[in-house]
């Protein structure tokens, strides 16, 4: 039981971080467009986030330094500030998309007007984040978000051809437009490897005061947490492949995957799916706004942390509130949160290399890490993924433009 509670950070990272609005959108659209053919991309993405999360969790446990301290120390002021600005833009866009997602789900549940629910949703999340201690935020959003497991049940219930599903785990290019296929590969990797996941995970590890004795829990947390996220991504894609692809449904709405759960499991399926999405997306809104505050405070050396009462880390507290306020303003313009999600995922891919390189460098630095520095496996995977990330960060925006956002 203690272990179960200890991995709460991993569960929240999985539910609010891995399966956020970006994954709900991209996995469902990928399944509805290419069937099972992109399942292998989720595997590639999840191994990458496990490798880098384990690394930054280990760095946090041993050196007590969170990711943006490392960015500043390794990249210096100028390049660090550039990384900070890029990451803050992406955090804000993502936070706005998640806030829009919260309002959409609340609207599906209540039928009240959308703009009213944006305001209600933001005020609700800000109050909860202000009042609840860090570990209760982890537990509330992580564990209630587990309602998303309904998608796994639904995916089994709709009876996919398991042979074809297995075939989807073999990498390859199959039918359809190659450029659109590549756009989805980049989008799925971007949705799996979002930078705010590592900002939040490493700062959370410092907040939870991890030390050398927590290295094992760090490994377990990153593997189980993100493994669970990947499992949910598979479920979403399989469900969309079975239900939406044959009927030619192009899921343009956040509620579409929930309809898939309803189709398979009836009203209770719909309800569980909506509650799961609400808490996953709400948790992600908190993660992105906190990540924005963590990064700014760590770059300039302010007091930071949710462990402190807001008065003990005042600029940190003001920063995450301001990020929520800006996100509210963006969504209030009425811009479609699903479109916003696609852009935020693609732009986040561009900010990734500058986030991952300092982690990789410091995880190899004996001055920080002593005998806990990267082993051969972590380095081989770390370098491979860094090269992959560079490649997708260069191709992300051209693909977005060439495919008209995956529409072909």
């Amino acid at each position: 039981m203690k272990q179960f509670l200890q991995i709460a950070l991993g569960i929240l990272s999985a539910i609010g971080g891995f399966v956020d609005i970006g994954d709900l959108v991209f996995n469902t659209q990928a399944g509805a467009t290419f069937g099972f053919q992109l399942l292998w991309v989720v595997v590639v993405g999840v191994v990458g986030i496990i490798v880098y999360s384990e690394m930054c969790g280990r760095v946090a446990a041993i050196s007590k330094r969170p990711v943006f301290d490392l960015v500043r120390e390794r990249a210096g002021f100028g390049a660090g500030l550039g990384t900070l600005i890029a990451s803050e833009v992406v955090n804000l866009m993502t936070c706005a998309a998640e806030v829009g997602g919260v309002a959409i789900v609340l609207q599906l549940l209540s039928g009240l007007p959308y703009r009213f629910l944006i305001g209600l949703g933001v005020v609700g999340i800000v109050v909860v984040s202000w009042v609840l201690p860090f570990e209760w935020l982890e537990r509330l959003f992580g564990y209630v978000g587990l309602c998303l497991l309904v998608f796994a049940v639904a995916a089994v219930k709709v009876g996919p051809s398991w042979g074809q599903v297995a075939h989807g785990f073999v990498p390859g290019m199959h039918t359809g437009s190659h450029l659109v296929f590549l756009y989805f590969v980049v989008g799925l990797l971007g949705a799996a490897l979002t930078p705010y996941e590592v900002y939040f995970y490493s700062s959370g590890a410092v907040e939870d005061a991890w030390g050398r004795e927590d290295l094992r829990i760090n490994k377990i947390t990153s593997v189980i947490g993100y493994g669970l996220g990947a499992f949910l991504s598979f479920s979403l894609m399989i469900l969309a492949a079975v239900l939406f692809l044959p009927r030619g449904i192009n899921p343009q709405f956040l509620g579409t995957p929930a309809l898939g759960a309803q189709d398979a499991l009836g009203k209770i399926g719909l309800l569980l799916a909506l509650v799961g999405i609400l808490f996953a997306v709400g948790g992600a809104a908190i993660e992105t706004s906190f990540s924005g505050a963590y990064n700014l405070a760590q770059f300039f050396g302010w007091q930071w942390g949710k462990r402190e009462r807001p008065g003990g880390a005042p600029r940190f507290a003001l920063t995450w509130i301001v990020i929520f306020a800006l996100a509210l303003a963006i969504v209030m313009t009425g811009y479609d949160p699903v479109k916003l999600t696609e852009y935020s995922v693609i732009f986040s891919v561009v900010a990734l290399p500058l986030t991952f390189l300092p982690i990789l460098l410091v995880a190899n630095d004996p001055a920080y890490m002593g005998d806990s520095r990267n082993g051969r496996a972590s380095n081989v995977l770390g370098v491979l993924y860094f090269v992959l990330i560079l490649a997708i960060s260069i191709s992300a925006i051209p693909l977005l433009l060439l495919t008209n956002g995956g529409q072909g």
Partner: protein
Amino acid sequence: MSSPGRELDLGLGLLDHQLVDRDGRNCGKVDDLELTAVPGGEPEVASILVGGAAWRGRGMLGRLAAALSGSAVRIPWSEVEDVSSVVTLKQPAQQLRLGRGDDRAARLVRRLPGS
């Protein structure tokens, strides 16, 4: 300094590192260093510069950021207690004129309930 004789790379081991005051409070970064020439010897670190104008020497974005903010605070090297992955100072931040932004923000935040 807790480990005399240990070699410290100023670029990697000191510049841009976290400053922590006597009470464990984060109070800025090592934004720049002032060195003094020692006749016939290696230059020595005279002081740490924190905030605002200290960013001027830190690249194009640094110059821009410096132009938009106030003056720097100078911390004499004699105020440094220890250098590990963070730089620990001998006094509370307030006495060194550090962490003033947090102090100002605290006056605002402490008016809110539950803070």
